[in-house]
């Protein structure tokens, strides 16, 4: 059974029907992971006993398989009365899992900012929160646009894990077509190429952001 191009093209619209689900999961998980990861890193920097707890949490996340997180959220939480939809669990799982990695990226980005920046803000009487938002975060972003973009691509590539929760994303859709028709090569190839195209778009976007951040200060 050879590769049938016409069949492949015929599967494209079916697979692209799930594109919005893949994008919804990927985009919300990127935002979720970045928001949680940034807060984890800020809490860790505050130090003390609480900082140690956060440090442990970050290491714990990074040392466990993502499927463990998805299964735990989906099958264990209901025993404690928390019943979440498969989609919510999927987004929460990806967000939590990648927040640990992004926290590490943010750490490197903040470590690279000279200590004098926070001191200057402090000397001007600018509070901790405003210092983080207006002085630290923008400079951090410029330092880490590339590695952060890599993790955004990773999150996109991790969306097929949601198949285990029966969330209808692109790879799951492709697999359904394969199961129905017994033709695997075409739908899986189409899904793979679609992921490649999305990943390339994200990388271009990150490159654009990087250039923009670099020229805006022109140092």
């Amino acid at each position, binding site marked *: 059974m050879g590769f049938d191009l016409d069949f492949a093209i015929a599967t494209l619209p079916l697979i692209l029907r799930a594109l919005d689900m893949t994008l919804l999961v990927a985009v919300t998980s990127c935002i979720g992971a970045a928001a949680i990861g940034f807060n984890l890193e800020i809490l860790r920097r505050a130090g003390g006993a609480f900082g140690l707890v956060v440090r442990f949490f970050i290491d714990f996340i990074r040392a466990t398989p993502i499927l463990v997180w998805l299964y735990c959220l989906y099958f264990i939480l209901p025993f404690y009365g928390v019943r979440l939809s498969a989609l919510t669990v999927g987004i929460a799982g990806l967000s939590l899992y990648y927040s640990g990695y992004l926290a590490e990226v943010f750490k490197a980005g903040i470590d690279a900012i000279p200590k004098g920046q926070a001191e200057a*803000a402090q000397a*001007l009487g600018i509070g901790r929160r405003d210092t983080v938002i207006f002085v630290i975060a923008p400079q951090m972003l410029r330092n880490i646009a590339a590695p952060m973009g890599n993790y955004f691509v990773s999150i996109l590539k991790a969306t097929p894990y949601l198949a285990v929760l029966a969330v209808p994303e692109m790879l799951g859709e492709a697999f359904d077509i394969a199961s129905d028709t017994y033709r695997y090569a075409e739908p899986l190839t189409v899904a793979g190429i679609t992921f490649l195209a999305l990943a390339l778009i994200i990388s271009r976007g990150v490159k654009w952001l990087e250039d923009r951040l670099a020229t805006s200060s022109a140092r």
Partner: protein
Amino acid sequence: MDQSDKDTVVRIDALQKWYGAFHVLKDISLTVPRGARIVICGPSGSGKSSLIRCVNGLEAYQQGTIDLEGVRLGENAAQTTLARRKTGMVFQSFNLFPHLTVLANCTLALRRVSGMARGEADELASQYLEKVRIPEQAHKYPGQLSGGQQQRVAIARALCMNPRLMLFDEPTSALDPEMIKEVLDVITGLAKDGMTMLCVTHEMGFAREVADEVVFMDHGSIVEKAPPDQFFSQPCHPRAREFLNTLLH
């Protein structure tokens, strides 16, 4: 509060500071009257920078007290914030925010701390940029300016918050020689306007011209305190004499 307290901007009393086992400030007492221009000098590692960084709460200290216009630093968070607001700080390495324009560097604290509206903040900042003689650079980024220009922006940024006391931590040490004068001229201008200042510097010509008191520190202590004429012509302490000799050669 009696009359003498009203005329005192900073009162440092029996200040002690350690970095671990290293005793960096030893029993420092110094009173800065309103309008005073005090230059702090001494060999590197003598504790000069630590001292002025304590005055605005950037560094913690272990014993003694610092009062800024009667408000005690380090008593509690609210008091410390109140006291710190009375000071403006200029750093050796400028520490401008590289991602913000010159104008935004000056207005950030006005807007976030003083809650000023954008138009009002921009106008006030422009006035101070004019005062440091670089109004035309307002929309450039710090990386596009020379070191001397950056340091003048840093001075304008500090002035925007209307400080009662300006702290200068070796403001010209990171500058190329041809830019030192433009920065010292601005500081001299401030002094003529009556600004109270504590300035750590090795610029002895500037100290002689502007200071009304020179404080010489060595090994964490104030070893000599004198008007510049006296300090430069006949320093009492042998270590001060030694220090001045090394500067001359």
